[in-house]
């Protein structure tokens, strides 16, 4: 059986020392091993940005795509091969700016994939511009007087559009992060996991210390019930979204694959491409 080490490869990440993404990578590798997966069982589809490189750092199948489009690629892949564990990953720019349309619709569609957003609230690879997650007043190269646009609240957004699995964690809590990724993969349907993954180079506000002082672990809220959508929304609002843990999970919602008429258990890619002569003649006769 594979251990987390089997999910490591020899590529040295081109992330800055101290980047939050290292923990996400480690948590992912642990989660895969903990779930008893082998490297060939897993495909990671990522977008563009510092975090988008993550698909190249895991010893598994990896598809490093174009900016903002990891989700439709991941959904197409999952529909082609439902035996694969498909994880989409990328940054907050990828998921909540250029790819926001896909994020919303992937949540609605509910294909059984897991989406991990490494949220550093800034654009790193392009060297420090504002992101849709930057807080009001955040000064960057593209907002020298401070951001004047409201930050997106991805957890609230996900609840609004009908997500079945909404969770948030932080790079400094490897144990919780690993558990959440595992739970997300095990969840039947689309899972959104937002990870506060500090950028040590371009975000001097939302630092490890800042999160330590501001995040509330849902485990510490007495009576918190992640199956209660109202409570989830209320708690997020009360804490300005700064909570970690599984915020909401609806175990009853069926994934897209289960709702497609005629969709079989056997992965689609294994099915016969040829149609029979009888089927061919029958279909042709429709045009007579």
């Amino acid at each position, binding site marked *: 059986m594979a251990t987390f080490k089997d999910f*490591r490869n020899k590529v040295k990440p081109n992330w800055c020392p101290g980047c939050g993404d290292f923990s996400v990578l480690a948590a992912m590798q642990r989660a895969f091993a903990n779930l008893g997966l082998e490297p*060939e069982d897993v495909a990671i589809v990522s977008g563009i940005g510092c975090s988008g490189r993550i698909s190249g750092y895991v*010893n598994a199948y990896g598809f490093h*795509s174009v900016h903002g*489009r990891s989700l439709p690629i991941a959904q197409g892949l999952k529909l*082609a*091969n439902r035996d694969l564990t498909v994880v989409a990953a990328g940054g907050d720019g990828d998921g909540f700016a250029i790819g926001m349309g896909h994020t919303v619709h992937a949540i609605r569609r509910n294909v059984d994939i897991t989406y991990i957003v490494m949220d550093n609230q800034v654009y790193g690879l392009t060297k420090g511009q504002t992101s849709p997650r930057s807080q009001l007043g955040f000064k960057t190269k593209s907002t020298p007087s401070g951001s004047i646009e409201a930050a997106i609240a991805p957890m609230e957004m996900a609840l609004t559009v009908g997500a079945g699995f909404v969770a948030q964690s932080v790079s400094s809590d490897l144990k919780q992060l690993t558990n959440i990724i595992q739970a997300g993969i095990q969840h039947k349907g689309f899972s959104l996991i937002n990870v506060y993954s500090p950028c040590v180079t371009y975000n001097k506000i939302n630092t490890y210390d800042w999160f330590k002082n501001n995040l509330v672990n849902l485990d510490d809220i007495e009576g918190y019930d992640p199956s209660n959508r109202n409570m989830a929304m209320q708690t997020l609002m009360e804490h300005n979204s700064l909570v970690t843990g599984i915020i909401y999970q609806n175990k009853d919602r069926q994934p897209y694959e289960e709702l497609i008429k005629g*969709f079989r258990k056997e992965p*689609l890619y294994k099915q016969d491409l040829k149609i029979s002569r009888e089927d061919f003649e029958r279909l042709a006769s429709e045009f007579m």
Partner: protein
Amino acid sequence: MKKQLSWKVGGQQGEGIDSAGEILSTALNRKGYYLYGYRHFSSRIKGGHSNTKLRISVNPVRSISDELDILVAFDQETIDFNASELVSNGIIIADSKFNPTVPEGVSARLIAVPFTKIAEEVGMAQMKNMVAVGASTALLGVPIDAFREVLEERFSRKGQKVVEKNLEAIARGKEYVESELLDASELKLEKSDGKKRLYMIGNDAIAFGALAAGARLMAAYPITPSSEIMEWLIKRLPEFGGTVVQTEDEIAAITMVIGANYGGVRTLTASAGPGLSLMTEAIGLSGMTETPAVIVNTQRGGPSTGLPTKQEQSDLLAMLFSTHGEIPKIVIAPSTAEECFYDTIEAFNLAEQYQCPVIILTDLALSLGKQTVEPLDYNRIQINRGKLVSDDEELPPLANSELFPRYGFTEDGISRRVLPGKKNGLHHVTGVEHDETGRPSESTINRVKMMNKRLGKLKNGINFSKPVHLDSKYEDADVLLIGFNSTRGTIAEAMERLEAEGMRVNHAHLPQILPFPTQIIAEEMKKARKVVVVENNATGQLAQVIKMQVGMAEKIVPFGKYNGNPFLPSEIYKQCKELLVHGNI
């Protein structure tokens, strides 16, 4: 008696124009007549002038005609708009309800038939279109039993009574015209051969072709004039285990196609110009990652929203050149519905053999025009997946942390393709320049080798069954006509007329546009004094490609039409005549 004639029905959109055309043509198809139709419609659901023109013949037809023999009008606008097309002494059948008049200068005969009144007497005003169909059959000399089967299939779920009422409406319309004792026996159709043939729009043929080719997924966003492809496949794919995903936009559609093809399922998308513009970046991803993708572009009037329901062929250069950087890409352009079927099957083979994007280019006239198709041949469905590692093959174990050389250098530039999920097949895929295992690489040596590998895949041409349709009888032709997509039959018809007048005309039609069949076209151009490039666009896009690929610019005469309508044979005929008369030849 006529071997062929043209019939048109027009009125306000939503008045049953389409179904009148559908029912008449389906019945005629079953009687063994050849048909070719073109729908003139607007980008709205109700209202606005709309018409369907149908050419009916005992011989194969592949073009709409210049003339019109019978015009069926539900309003005066239809007459005012279309009467000029009528042959001298042609016939207008119109609803007497609006007191139809024949415009000045038109020598047509008018038969006013109380469409609405008869329909109301039979039971429902909506059936006025069936009265009109009946009135038409009186002229065409088609027995009404031809309609029973068609109406039963269409209306039987609404009950036998509805079928009978519609039949009665047809019969009453026929009787009315016959009682007018009009001598129009010259319009009666000759007897057809009675053979069974298919009757389909290009989009039907593409959808059916995709299913036959083994496509099991489609991701698409609705757009005119491509939506019929997704609509047909969503009805048929479930029984073959597949589905159609209606995505949030065309970018999601093309990237889902890439993801599913990466996963090993033949998957397509279909759109028109605006959608293709959005897909441009991802087409580059398909080229760079050597992931097969089949993309249908049903061209319509551009630019921007342009003329969304009208004919144009102005996306050609965009299909050849759009996407940043340089990738291998294949563009094929079927010219008939029959070819749409077979070429779509080939498109899926090409995409997997060359591991690159394949664009199937059509135009609105081909995608939506309904035409007779000879029975399709099951034995011509061949599936070739290229260098795909099969599911049964066991791969040797990879050394510690090594990857499978998914992009390994080979003689033909095509590497073995392994699907995710395969043991010992791990590799990386990225739109970043990469080495043989897919890992990012900025090495100058690797960069040049990889570019040469990818672009070299198509360097020696492609394995496409019919790169050029040639009708080339003359070694010293006055004119070579070149076109692509739906103009094939129109050009052929113009050519026939020119030849009848002693002009030597050759015709080359291009189903394969990229890679361009330079050799064949160069040979044909050498044989002709002038080369007229017929295309539905303003800037002579195909002519530009030919100049670039072949040269001989001095011979090339671009001939464009971009008013939203397809070419008529007479327009091409006149253009060639003028060249001849004005001493240019």
